[in-house]
């Protein structure tokens, strides 16, 4: 009896010890690793990473692989700086509202958040965020030779600036590309469209709904970041100007032509459901082989190349946005940036800057992209130097023909700071425009009537 009790106790004891050791082992290992080789590239920066040790910051991001990779690496940042980072994942549809509510109530819940570039004007009007310049020029906080701000994609930095002041540091961005089915195009002897007319004729050539192949699809669902995302590029390609004599104008002949082109394409060659589709729906349909071509973010390439779901791997190729009647190609300059919440106490603002600097620096960008250990690699790194790094380029080539070339050319030549009108009233204007576009797509109103109505609604919004 005694004997069994003894052994049981001993067993329990050893069991506890073993499990404790097992539980501790990975963190011990991580800690040890993080302190050694992992941190060396960061420590070459001539700043004191540990100066805000003990601070805690909360970061709001969206659930997406490019942020998941960053979250995976966060223990390295914590070991480097002694700052604790909490991440909160908020779906893209809600993150704008949640951060605006946090900023307007000045509670400082989110030290920084994944921000929509179109919101910086609103942030600036309310002085909700800090200019990056304050932190970039402070030698105790930033080593310019190490951080190399100029290496960050200029179009994205411009998109995140108001009156020349950078308000949010680009972390991950995208360009819009033409994605098409090489096999279908080859069978008909087609080339990727160089202009919008050819885009339509290509769509017409491969359009065959009886065989469940629709010619083309573009985002149709209403939203400032959904149908307006595509429409804004079209509007600019058709020669539209958001400001006429200093007045924000969304109607007029160029706007009507752009919207009519959009409506016609969607009516004739897109599945009826596409009217309510966002980009993931389009990418899903494309990967099932039911769409001939689409124009959307280059990052959707990872969806259409997902080996578990896609039936079109190896049949995908890419090209730049087709040219519009004005001769311009206009890509999205969308990026998720990190601003600094102005409601924070001074010390925490600086701690937040260290986080942003860490997230946006070349080393972390590379570690979350081609050097990331997990299966999902990022395709929207913010550094020109990485886009020229053979290791990264080699990985990106796997997405299909011409992917890297088209993306780089778009980044360098097709960006347009005035892609969308950058004013504080954007949330209201974007929503009004989205509603107008959708009612035209639904056939509720003609392009002209929908845009005239939108103009009527937008004018009072711009009045002070």
């Amino acid at each position, binding site marked *: 009896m005694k004997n069994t009790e003894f052994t049981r106790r001993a067993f329990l004891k050893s069991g506890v010890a073993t499990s404790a050791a097992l539980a501790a082992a990975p963190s011990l290992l991580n800690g040890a690793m993080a302190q050694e080789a992992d941190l060396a590239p960061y420590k070459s920066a001539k700043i004191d990473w540990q100066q805000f040790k003990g601070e805690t910051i909360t970061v709001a991001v969206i659930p997406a692989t490019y942020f998941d990779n960053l979250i995976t690496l966060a223990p390295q940042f914590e070991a480097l700086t002694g700052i604790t980072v909490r991440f909160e994942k908020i779906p893209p549809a809600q993150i704008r*509202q949640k951060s605006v509510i946090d900023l307007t109530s000045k509670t400082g819940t989110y030290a920084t958040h994944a921000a929509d570039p179109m919101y910086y004007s609103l942030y600036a009007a*309310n002085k909700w965020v800090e200019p990056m310049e304050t932190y970039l020029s402070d030698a105790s906080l930033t080593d310019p030779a190490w951080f190399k701000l100029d290496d960050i994609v200029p179009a994205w930095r411009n998109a995140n600036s108001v009156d020349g002041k950078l308000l949010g540091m680009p972390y991950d961005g995208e360009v819009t590309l033409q994605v098409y089915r090489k096999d279908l195009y080859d069978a008909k002897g087609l080339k990727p469209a160089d202009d919008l007319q050819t885009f339509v004729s290509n769509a017409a050539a491969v359009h065959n709904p009886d065989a469940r192949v629709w010619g083309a699809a573009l985002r149709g669902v209403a939203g400032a970041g959904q149908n307006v995302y595509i429409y804004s590029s079209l509007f600019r390609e058709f020669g539209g100007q958001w400001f006429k004599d200093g007045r924000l104008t969304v109607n007029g002949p160029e706007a009507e032509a752009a919207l009519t082109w959009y409506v016609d394409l969607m009516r004739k060659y897109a599945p009826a459901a596409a009217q309510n589709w966002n980009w993931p729906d389009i990418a899903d349909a494309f990967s099932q082989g039911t769409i001939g071509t689409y124009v959307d973010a280059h990052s959707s390439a990872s969806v259409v190349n997902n080996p578990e779901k896609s039936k079109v791997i190896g049949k995908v190729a890419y090209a730049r946005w087709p040219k519009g009647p004005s001769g311009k190609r206009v890509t999205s300059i969308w990026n998720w940036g990190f601003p600094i919440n102005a409601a924070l106490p001074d010390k925490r603002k600086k701690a937040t800057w260290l986080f942003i600097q860490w997230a946006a620096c070349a080393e972390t960008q590379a570690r979350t992209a081609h050097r990331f250990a997990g299966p999902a690699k990022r395709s929207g790194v913010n550094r020109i130097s990485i886009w020229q790094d053979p290791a990264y380029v080699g990985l990106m080539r796997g997405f299909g023909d011409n992917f890297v070339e088209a993306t780089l050319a778009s980044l360098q030549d097709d960006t347009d700071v005035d892609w969308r009108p950058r004013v504080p009233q954007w*949330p209201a204007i974007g929503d009004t425009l989205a509603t107008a576009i959708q009612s035209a797509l639904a056939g509720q109103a003609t392009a002209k009537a929908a845009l005239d109505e939108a103009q009527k609604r937008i004018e009072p919004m711009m009045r002070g």
Partner: protein
Amino acid sequence: MTKSLAAEPAGLGRVMSPSGTDYSRALAVRERRFATALLAPAFLALMATTTFPLLYLIWTSVHRMDLAMPFADGFVGFDNYRELLQDSRFWASLAVSLIYTGTTVVLQVVIGLALALLVMGMKRGQGLFRSIAILPVVLSPAVVGMVWRTFMLAPEFGIVDYFAIMAGLGSQNWLGDPTLALVSVVVIHTWQWTPFAFMVLLASLAALPDDIYEAARIDRASAWQRFKRITLPLLRPAIVMVIIMRTMVALTAFAAIFTVTGGGPGTATEILNLYAYRKSFTELSIGYGSALAVALLIVTVLISAVLFAVRRAR
């Protein structure tokens, strides 16, 4: 608190006095005080969570509060309301709200009553039918919206569309066509909430006295006559109650429409509630959004007042 403690000995002193009425009055006072103390936390919580926000809403609605133009904020009196009366989108969304409420409530009561009568006549399987019928009610409207949007109504891929194609109607863009979209959201709401009307009416039906029907049968009243002359009048209180409850909920519906159409296409299914939400939280024009919410409140109160008056009428 100290005051009431100090008053206590005086009260006790009076209890000692010979007069019985004094004693009971003191007792009543103490009881009332005790009741007040018990009530206070709940009352304060209620004030803080309902009355205060309501007053704050009204206060906001007479201000200009525009996050996009903070420099223009300030008191504007009834400007928001004046603007509202001229806002065609307000009237359109009010009309959509009324159509949505009217049709869903009528459909719920008619279908619910028909089902209840049918199930009452069932000899077996009543319990099973009841438990199946309750399922939609326990689902979250947002989930219901997502299910309908993706599995049921998606053109070419959804179940409803599949049946439409089978029936020779062809594929329809259920949520993309303005009229069909409104029909769809009405159907979804009716689908989810008819079981509620059904359950209430079934319970009331079961409670109706048998002897009246027996007498009617002896008098050779037809089934239709029995329904019209006995069942309907006796069920009237239950029906009116269902109408009142469902009307208030339908007027303030949000989640299902928000997830299914987001008010679209265009503004075809934009109910007043959704318009107020978009104004406040998407366009960040909080003052005007509050005015819209107050307008919705007034409409809801007016309609419920009418319904309660009807209920009391007989």
